[in-house]
């Protein structure tokens, strides 16, 4: 064992003393037991100083024993798994755990920047806004790095997270948040009634306060009831217990966010196991039984190590068998604080004194000072003395006006309890103030939510048991269950008896928010400067921000604000509560969607064949498409692309165009339907013919284009661009369902049913003859340009669709085969085309050929262009209505001054053109006033042996032949270009019709 666990009690607690675990904190070795948290193990080893504070670098200790901890944050683990700002109070100890304190240099004990305490006047409320106002340019270079170094929390790993995270859904009748006495009672009642229950507990052990405080239930030790209850729950198949799982948010429609820390308690998650799991639980009803959070008292030096919540002292002693001090002073304003006295005494821990602030302190409590070994003082702790290694003394202002002091190495404080209302205040729920307990309790909860136990302001064990049972029974009934919920467990009544106490004036800084170093003076200053609204208070002072979201500080802060601004606490109100209630890792929110799995990847059926051919792929949306097919000896992509273009133009090549969207449009009104969505007419298209179609958005701007063929009287086959396949389908469904339900037309997405190849080049027919059934005639007469029909393959009983359409401008066909045959078809084309020198070509060569032919594509269909802009205005039918027709006639959209698509050719054949360059009159000074257009697409044309471009130029069609300048500031160039007809190659179109 690495050390002697100086503060471990001889017995008691639910740690497993037979299983010692070794760990290090700031490089020093310690040991603890299985069942410890990192915090309880450090308590057991007498470690008090665990961190330095955010702004002032003050020494800090452990304040709480739970999820609400503001101070005890560490960097857990090392290397890629290092996790900053980990709350040690919820970090389960494992063998070999490594943790390091944060925000100190060079060491925790000797922290250089603790001089910030001397400079504290500049770190007051709003210091960001006041100190670093001017000059603005100093922010990036000076102020921000300075602040980041001086004020901050932990450091990140700076390496990719090696672990997995996942997301899951679950559905249930009743979701119960919290497995303390109320939550367990609720689970029993709802489970017995027959409801499907999820019981979620953030802690790794169930029982809540019972684990520390014990007590009696049904005249037996609470632990016995807990064991029996959990056995009954385990036996109910309809109840699912999820430990290490916190409900962090309420979402619409009964959806709840849960974070399960699946493997944080192990050094490394087991193989194939996630570290965290994000749950989305859909529940008919939800019961919040998350208990309450004890509130601190604000007094001088109340942040010193050794000052701890009274309930936390009980947790360390009662649950972990470790004492935070050898001589404990207890400071309370309520009876619950006295439980700490009883528990410590029972465990043999010395009580130095009890300081009870209540004027009406019950005489029997006052009398205990006479019978016990400690004094009972009626007064308030005004300050604590002691340095970084913990307090040594507390100073007390007695209620009569005198002062006193008590030697102690730990101060257990309790200013009462705040119900954990966080979740109940999601969805604009507003908490209500209850004067008798001086606390906010749940008000109008989100739909379907009820609250039980301490979370509802019912702090006694008796009320937790009965309230939980009632809530469970009611929730099950509301979810439609009719089983019997049984009876509630019983416990005796307790008197809470608190008197509000928020702040005691004293020597030294008095901290409200220990995580963000916000003091009582900061709150007062905010009030003086007019930031009285709690939302302003929060932003101005940063009160209640960061990892703990002010769980121990918000109410004290607003109580002090209420006091200094002369309003009541309910008048002052709370800030808006938003998810997440507990920290949620970004990894869990992302789940598996990272790196290669960031999004789904779609592969065409011939993908693996293309890989074999050595294709270089490009991402187009979710698809991987072959971009070019390099050959040995080719020095760069341009050489490969040039070869592909020249081979197609002089011989034959084929390209996988499967990624195009494909939609079967069927029904007796299919033609009418297409007439209404395309600008041109399809109802009169002959069966066996294809036609290029253009569709507009309703605002008159071009949406998409493609080729649509009529395969039979009432069956059209539409293709869309790759990018718009989904949006066009959605648009067509809208038109069909919402606008024209009277049309007899059905739409079926067939994008994934067909693998499609474009075969292009003068030798295309030779290849087709080799792959098609000998009965298929593809001569110009039998299969003219824009023909479309079904064909059979040679030696295979497979029906394919053949379209004589051309994007390249060459003699070309597109053939669709059922996608299962896509791979075979690619191989078949290669084999059949071999005697004719066939090659596969990629999207680059496809792009070069379409630019040479002046075909508009995605860069020109850019959401700003009209049919007229693209030179397709004459396609707009006059005698029918179609989507976008009316709006396309708007004055601005038909203005002769519009930028329209033209070809752009550098005057100097050696100039390299880039897309994005701006077109200005020749010799003009570049600027917004001289800007007359822009270059949309460029390529190197091996046919013309120079760079070519397409672009949008104002009045472009009237300027054919004009020399203009293209200004490309990105590449630092301006060069002269000729505006020309966009069809650079074979303008008569003879090649594709041949």
């Amino acid at each position, binding site marked *: 064992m690495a050390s002697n666990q100086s503060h471990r009690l001889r017995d008691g607690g639910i740690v497993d003393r037979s299983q010692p675990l070794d760990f290090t904190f700031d490089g020093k070795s310690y040991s603890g037991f299985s069942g410890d948290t990192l915090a309880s193990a450090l308590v057991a080893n007498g470690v008090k100083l665990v961190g330095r504070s955010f702004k002032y670098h003050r020494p800090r200790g452990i304040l709480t024993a739970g999820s609400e901890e503001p101070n005890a944050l560490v960097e857990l683990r090392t290397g890629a798994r290092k996790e900053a700002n980990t709350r040690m109070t919820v970090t389960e100890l494992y063998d070999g755990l490594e943790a390091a304190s944060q925000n100190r240099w060079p060491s925790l004990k000797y922290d250089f920047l603790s001089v910030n305490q001397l400079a504290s006047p500049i770190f007051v409320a709003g210091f960001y806004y006041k100190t670093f106002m001017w000059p603005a340019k100093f922010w990036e270079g000076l102020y921000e790095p300075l602040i980041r170094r001086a004020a901050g929390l932990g450091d990140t790993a700076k390496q990719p997270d090696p672990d997995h995270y996942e997301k899951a859904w679950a559905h249930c009748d009743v979701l119960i948040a919290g497995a303390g006495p109320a939550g367990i009672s609720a689970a029993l009642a709802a489970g017995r009634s027959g409801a499907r229950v999820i019981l979620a507990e953030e802690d790794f052990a169930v029982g809540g306060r019972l684990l520390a405080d014990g007590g009696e239930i049904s005249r037996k030790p609470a632990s016995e009831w807990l064991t029996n209850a959990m056995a009954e729950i385990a036996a109910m198949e309809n109840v699912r217990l999820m430990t290490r799982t916190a409900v962090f948010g309420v979402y619409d*429609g009964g959806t709840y966010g849960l974070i399960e820390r699946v493997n944080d308690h192990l050094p490394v998650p087991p193989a194939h196991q996630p570290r965290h799991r994000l749950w989305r639980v*859909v529940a008919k009803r939800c019961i919040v039984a998350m208990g309450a959070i004890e509130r601190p008292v604000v007094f001088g030096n109340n942040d010193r190590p050794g000052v701890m919540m009274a309930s936390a002292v009980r947790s360390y002693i009662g649950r972990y068998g470790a004492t935070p001090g050898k001589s404990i002073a207890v400071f309370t304003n309520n009876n619950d604080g006295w439980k700490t006295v009883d528990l410590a005494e029972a465990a043999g821990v010395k009580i130095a004194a009890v300081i009870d602030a209540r004027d009406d302190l019950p005489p029997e409590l006052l009398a205990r000072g006479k019978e016990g070994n400690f004094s009972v003082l009626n007064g308030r702790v005004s300050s604590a003395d002691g340095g970084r290694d913990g307090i040594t003394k507390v100073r007390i202002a007695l209620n009569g006006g005198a002062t006193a002091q008590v030697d102690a190495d730990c101060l257990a404080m309790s200013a009462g309890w705040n119900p954990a209302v966080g979740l109940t205040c999601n969805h604009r729920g507003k908490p209500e103030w209850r004067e008798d307990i001086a606390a906010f309790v749940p008000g109008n909860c989100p739909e379907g939510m009820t609250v039980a136990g301490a979370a509802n302001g019912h702090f006694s064990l008796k009320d937790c048991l009965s309230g939980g049972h009632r809530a469970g029974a009611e929730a099950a009934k509301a979810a439609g269950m009719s089983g019997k919920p049984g009876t509630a467990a019983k416990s005796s009544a307790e008197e809470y008896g608190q008197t509000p106490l928020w702040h005691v004036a004293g020597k030294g800084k008095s901290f409200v928010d220990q995580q963000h170093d916000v003091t009582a003076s900061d709150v007062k200053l905010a009030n003086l400067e007019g930031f009285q609204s709690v939302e302003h208070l929060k932003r101005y002072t940063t009160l209640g921000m960061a990892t703990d979201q002010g769980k121990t500080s918000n109410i004290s802060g607003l109580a002090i604000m209420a006091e200094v601004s002369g309003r009541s606490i309910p008048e002052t109100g709370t800030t808006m509560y938003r998810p997440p209630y507990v920290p949620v890792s970004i990894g869990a929110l992302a789940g598996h969607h990272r790196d290669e799995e960031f999004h789904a990847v779609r592969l065409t059926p011939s993908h693996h064949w293309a890989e074999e051919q050595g294709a270089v792929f490009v991402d187009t949306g979710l698809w991987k498409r072959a971009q070019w097919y390099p050959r040995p000896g080719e020095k760069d992509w341009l050489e490969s692309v040039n070869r592909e273009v020249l081979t197609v133009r002089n011989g034959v090549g084929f390209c996988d165009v499967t990624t195009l969207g494909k939609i079967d449009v069927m029904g007796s009104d299919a033609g009418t339907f297409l007439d209404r969505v395309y600008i041109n007419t399809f109802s009169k298209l002959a069966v066996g013919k294809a036609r290029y179609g253009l569709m507009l958005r*309703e605002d008159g701007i071009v949406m998409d284009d493609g080729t649509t063929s009529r395969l039979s009287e009432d069956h059209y086959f539409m293709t869309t661009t790759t990018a718009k396949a989904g949006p066009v389908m959605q648009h067509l469904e809208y038109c069909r*369902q*919402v*606008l024209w339900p009277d049309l007899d037309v059905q739409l079926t997405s067939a994008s994934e049913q067909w693998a499609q190849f474009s075969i292009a080049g003068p030798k295309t027919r030779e290849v087709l003859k080799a792959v098609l059934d000998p009965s298929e005639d593809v001569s110009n007469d039998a299969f003219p340009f824009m023909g479309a029909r079904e064909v059979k393959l040679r030696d295979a009983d497979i029906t394919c669709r053949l379209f004589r359409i051309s994007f390249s401008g060459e003699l070309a066909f597109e053939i669709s085969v059922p996608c299962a045959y896509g791979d075979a078809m690619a191989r078949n084309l290669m084999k059949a085309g071999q005697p004719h020198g066939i090659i596969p070509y990629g999207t680059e060569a496809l792009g070069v050929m379409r630019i040479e032919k002046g075909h508009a594509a995605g860069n020109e269909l850019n959401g700003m262009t009209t049919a007229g802009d693209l030179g397709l205005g004459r396609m707009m039918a006059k005698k029918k209505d179609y989507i976008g027709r*009316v*709006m396309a*006639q708007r004055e601005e959209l038909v203005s002769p001054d519009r930028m329209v698509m033209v070809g752009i050719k550098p005057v100097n054949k050696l100039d390299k053109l880039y897309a994005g360059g701006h077109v200005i009159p020749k010799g003009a000074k570049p600027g917004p006033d001289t800007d007359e257009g822009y270059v949309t697409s460029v390529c190197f044309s091996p046919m013309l042996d120079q760079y070519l471009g397409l672009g949008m130029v104002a009045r472009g069609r009237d300027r054919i032949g004009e020399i203009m300048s293209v200004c490309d500031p990105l590449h630092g160039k301006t060069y002269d270009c000729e505006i020309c007809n966009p069809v650079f190659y074979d303008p008569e179109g003879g090649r594709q019709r041949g």
Partner: protein
Amino acid sequence: MRINCPYCGERDASEFTYLGDASLVRPDATPKDPPLDPVSDEAQALREQFHDYVYLRDNVAGFMRESWYHGGGCRTWLTVERHTVTHEIKSVTAAPGVGAKAPKKSGRRG
């Protein structure tokens, strides 16, 4: 948010795509014979109608009838009556014809 699709049952909102106001009715734009002169008052009036249809929306704080598309399910366009502040959903129905020009006899459908 959960949307109770009449065909698929209750599903998470992530399966759906939002479009907007479902009370819009596409104006009748059947071309006249002979076609309207684009600068005529009648043509201008039609463009005004379409301008309203395409661009003008009420910014409702309260219940609103909205078009949602169940693209992650049955591809049905739905009319969802939803409270834009609380996200409460009052009704979900399939939307055949809600954007169609009003039939002459039976009034608005949907």
